[in-house]
């Protein structure tokens, strides 16, 4: 597993355009699709989210979303092969969620600080029907990963770019309304 430190010169030019502006790259990881590395990634994401200012519950949510996204890549994009490449790019962004769910607080809506995570793999393109969550009323194993990701993040976007699957996740730092306590 390779973990690269932020480099202000290294900005991806081909990232998806959005209403958000990027403050900068925070962390970049390259790893093989080995499930034994999930624990190490979770540890790194936990520390990053803590330092980013998320609440403990939000830290767990972001960590869970990244873990589930990686699990989906390993299981579905790479069919369990442990030697395929995965890249994760963590950036700080500033903006407001247009496509995502609303967040608390007027200040947060206008100029929210968020953590953007882009996960890239070189597996086959994902079909839209594969992105469907199962009905939670069903008591059965499987199909929960995407539900966990959707519940945990403010923005979840998938794109196929030049032979690469790109899953973009954003979590905004929620600003509590004045007078409300956590």
């Amino acid at each position: 597993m390779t973990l690269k430190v932020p480099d202000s010169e290294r900005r991806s030019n081909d990232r998806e355009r959005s209403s958000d502006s990027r403050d900068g790259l925070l962390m970049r990881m390259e790893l093989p699709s080995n499930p034994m590395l999930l624990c190490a990634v979770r540890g790194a994401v936990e520390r990053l989210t803590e330092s980013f200012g998320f609440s403990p519950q939000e830290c767990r949510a972001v960590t869970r979303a990244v873990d589930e996204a990686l699990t989906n890549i390993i299981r579905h994009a790479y069919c369990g092969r442990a030697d395929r490449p995965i890249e994760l790019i963590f950036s700080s962004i500033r903006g407001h969620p247009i496509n995502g769910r609303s967040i608390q607080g007027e200040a947060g809506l206008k100029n929210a600080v968020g953590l953007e995570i882009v996960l890239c793999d070189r597996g086959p393109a994902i079909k839209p029907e594969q992105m469907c969550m199962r009905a939670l009323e069903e008591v059965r194993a499987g199909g929960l990963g995407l539900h966990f990701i959707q519940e945990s993040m403010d923005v979840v976007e998938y794109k196929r770019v030049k032979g690469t699957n790109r899953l973009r996740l954003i979590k905004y730092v929620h600003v509590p309304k004045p007078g409300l306590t956590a």
Partner: protein
Amino acid sequence: MEISVRKVDKTVIFDLSGDMDLGNTPAVRKAFLREVRENRVPRVVINLSRVRYIDSSGVASLVEALKASRDVGSRLILIGLSGSAREVLQLSRLLKIFEIYDNEEEALAA
């Protein structure tokens, strides 16, 4: 993840330690299903007090074990759920389908 199995009267207790994620749930799942389907013990208790993290594949293993236990008419009980484990089951809306107790004594007395 460490899995240890012990027997108290007619109850089999799994003591799990570590993280339940894609890297180790196949082994956990296999151990659960063997105990329920092949050995057909009347009561299986899964001690999660030392499990720090459960992902969707871990939840799926617990659901499979629960279904297998129902199929053979035995009980599957979870004990020692951490806040994080409870949160994941809540998020899955599966918390209510499991029989859950705080500790081993309560589970064995139930």
